[in-house]
C-alpha cells in the first residue's frame, strides 16, 4: 500500500512538476532513510559514517563506467557491491557499542574520503579532480533507476518488519545477549542487516553519481548526507516503514521551500529540531500515532 502510493507519486508527479532533480533527491533521501532505518531502526546501531557507502557506491560505479566502459545499470549494481565490500571491511566495528561504533564509523567514512581524494591515487580515482561521466549522461534513466531502488528499499524495510528476520533484529536491538539465548545468530543477522543497509546506500550513491554525472569527492562524501538521513529517520520515527518516508517528505520538502528563501535559518532550525526531538519525542512523529493506538506500518 505504502509502496504503491509512493511509486504512483513518483511516476506521475514529473508530468505536472518539472524539477526532476528535486524529486530525484527526495527519492534518494527516502531510500537512504530506509537504508539507515534497517541498521539503526532495527538493530540500534547508528552509523554516523553512512555517507561512506554512498560515496563508495558513486565511485565504484563511476570507475567501472570510465575504465571498463560498463553500461550504467550493471555499474549501479556494482556500486552497491562496492558499498557492501566496504561494509564487510567495517564489520569488526560491531565489537564496539553505541556511540563508539558511530564515531568509528564516521572516522572510517572520512578515511575513505581522504583515500579517494588523495592525488597519489589520481590515476585510479581521479583524486581531487573529480569524476565526469558525459558518456552515460541520461537523467531520465537515472530517475527511473532511483525509483526502482526506492521500491527495493521500501519492500526490504517492509519485509523486515513482518518477517522472522525482522523479529530477530528487534531482539538484537533490545538485548543482544538474550537474543543469542533465543538462538539468534547475532553476529550474522547484524552483518546481513548492515550489508543490506550498505547496499542501499551504495546503489543510491551510484544512481546519484549517474544522475548528476559530474561530481567531486566532497560532493558524495558530504557529512550532510548522513545528517539529513538521520534527521529524517528520527523525525519520522525509526523502526517503522512509514516514519522515514514521512520524515523525508516533511523535512526535505520544508528544506526546499522554506530553506531556499531563508536558508540562513535552516541549519539553526535543524539543530534545534534535533535537540527538541531527543528531549521530547525520541521515537519520532509516528510514535504520536502509536500512542493513540493507531498501528503504524
Amino acid at each position, binding site marked *: 500500500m505504502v509502496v504503491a502510493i509512493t511509486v504512483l507519486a513518483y511516476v506521475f508527479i514529473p508530468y505536472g512538476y518539472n524539477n526532476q532533480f528535486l524529486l530525484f533527491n527526495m527519492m534518494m533521501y527516502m531510500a537512504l532513510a530506509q537504508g539507515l532505518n534497517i541498521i539503526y531502526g532495527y538493530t540500534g546501531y547508528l552509523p554516523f559514517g553512512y555517507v561512506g557507502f554512498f560515496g563508495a557506491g558513486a565511485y565504484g560505479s563511476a570507475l567501472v563506467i570510465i575504465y571498463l566502459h560498463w553500461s550504467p545499470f550493471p555499474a549501479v549494481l556494482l556500486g552497491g557491491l562496492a558499498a557492501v565490500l566496504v561494509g564487510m571491511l567495517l564489520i569488526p566495528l560491531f565489537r564496539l557499542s553505541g556511540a563508539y561504533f558511530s564515531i568509528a564509523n564516521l572516522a572510517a567514512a572520512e578515511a575513505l574520503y581522504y583515500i579517494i581524494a588523495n592525488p597519489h591515487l589520481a590515476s585510479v580515482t581521479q583524486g581531487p579532480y*573529480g569524476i565526469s561521466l558525459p558518456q552515460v549522461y541520461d537523467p531520465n534513466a537515472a530517475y527511473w533507476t532511483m525509483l526502482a531502488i526506492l521500491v527495493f528499499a521500501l519492500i526490504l524495510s517492509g519485509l523486515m518488519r513482518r518477517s522472522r528476520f525482522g523479529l530477530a533484529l528487534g531482539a538484537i536491538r533490545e538485548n543482544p545477549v538474550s537474543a543469542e539465548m533465543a538462538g539468534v545468530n547475532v553476529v550474522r543477522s547484524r552483518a546481513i542487516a548492515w550489508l543490506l543497509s550498505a547496499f542501499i546506500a551504495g546503489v543510491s550513491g551510484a544512481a546519484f553519481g549517474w544522475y548528476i554525472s559530474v*561530481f567531486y569527492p566532497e560532493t558524495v562524501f558530504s557529512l*550532510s548526507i548522513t545528517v539529513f538521513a538521520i534527521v529524517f529517520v528520527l523525525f519520522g520515527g525509526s523502526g517503522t516503514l512509514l516514519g522515514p518516508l514521512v520524515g523525508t517528505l516533511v523535512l526535505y520538502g520544508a528544506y526546499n521551500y522554506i530553506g531556499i528563501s531563508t536558508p540562513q535559518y535552516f541549519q539553526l532550525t535543524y539543530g534545534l529540531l534535533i535537540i527538541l526531538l531527543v528531549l521530547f519525542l525520541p521515537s519520532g512523529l509516528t510514535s504520536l500515532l502509536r500512542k493513540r493506538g493507531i498501528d503504524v506500518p
Partner: protein
Amino acid sequence: MLRKLVLRVVLAAVATAVSLGAWASPSVIKIGTLYASSGYFSQASTRQYDGLKFWVRQINAKGGVYVKAFGKRIPVKLIAYNDQSSTMLAASLYNRLITQDRVHTLVADYGSVLTSVAVPLAQEHRIVLFDETGTSGKFFRPENRNRYIVLTGLPTSSQWPKVLAKFMHSKGIRRVAILYAANDWSGSQAKTLNQTLKQDGVDVVYFHSVPDSTTSYSTILHSIAEYKPEAVAEFGYSDNDIAFVQDYANSGLYFPMVFIPNPALHFEVVRKAVGNKALRYIYSYVAPPIIRYNREVTYGPTLNEFKAAYAKAGGKNVDLSTVAGFNTGLIIQKALATAPKFTQESIRDAIDKFSGKIFTLDGLFKVNRYGAQVGEFLPVGQVLPTKTGVALKAVFPSESAVAKAVYPAPRNK
C-alpha cells in the same frame, strides 16, 4: 520503457514550445543564477553575485538589455537562489531555474565545484551556461562536445601558472619547490607549473600535495627547506594560503621567492588574516581589479569607471569576484546585442563571432570552440611595501608591470 517514451515525448513538446516561443518577444529576459550565502564558497560567491546584480541594475536603468532578435531593449529579471555552497542543493536549484523558471540565460555560481553540476544540465537542456569562474579544465574537453558553456572570466586554471613559470625562468631560478592542496583547482595549477618548469629546464626539487584541510605548514616548510629551493610555490584555497604564509613568517626559514595564488583573488581577506608584515614580498598572480584595464577597454566601462560607479551605488570592496560577476553581465549583453535570433544556438554562435574582438575591464575576451577562455592571462605580482601598508603590484611580464620585482626577497623583512 513506455513511461520513458511518454516522458521523451513530453520533453520534446516542451522543447518545441520553448523554441517556438522564442520568436515572440518576452516581456522580460530572465537570467537565472545561484549564489552561496553560507558555507565554503560564500565569501567569493556573494561578491560575484553582487557584481552581476550591479550589472542588472545598471542595464535596467537604461531600460533593459538590447536584444537584436527583437530590435528593442527588454528589461532583465534576475532569478537567484541560494545554494549554501552545497553541490547537491545547487544541482536541484539549477534544475529549477531551467525547468520551472524557464530562464533564458543561465549563469553559474562561483568556482568549479558549484559550477560542475550545472555543466551537464545545461548541455542536456541545450541552454548556454555562462560560467563565471568555474575554471576546471574538464568542463571544456573537446570530447565533451559541449557547445553550451562559455567561460566568461579567467582562463582555465591549468593556464594560470604559465606566466609564473616564465618569470621564474627569467630570474634564473634553478630549483623550485611546489606544494599544493589536494583539490581540482590547486592541483591543476601545480601540475602545469611543474610541467612548464621542467620543459624550461628548471629543476622541480619538491612536488607534493597536502590534504585540502591542511592548516599547519611548519613541519612541511622545514622538509621543503631541506631541498634548498630558490622559489617555493604553494597552491591552495585561501585558508591554506593564510596558514602557509603565517607559518612561513614564523618559521625563521628563508626562501628567495614565495608564491601563493589567493592574494590575486581576494587580497584584503588574506591581508587581514595574516597581517602586512607576513605578506611582504610574497608573490601572487595579479588579476583585475588589481591589474587595471582602462586604456585597452573596448566594451563596457573601464575598471576605474566601474569602481567609481560601484562605489557610488554603495558597493564596497571590489575584488576579482565582483569584476567577474559584472563582466559576465557584459558578455551576456554583447551576446544578446549581436545574436540575430533569440535562440541558445544563435547566442552561442554570436559569442564565437565576437570572441577575441572585445576587451572588457576583465581583459581580452576570447573563447575557443568548447567555451574555454584563452584570451585572458594572469601576470605575476608581488606584495610590496607602500606608504600606508602593502599592495600587490604587477611585476611581470614587462608590458603589464607597474613595479619592479624585488628578487631575491630581503632577508630580514
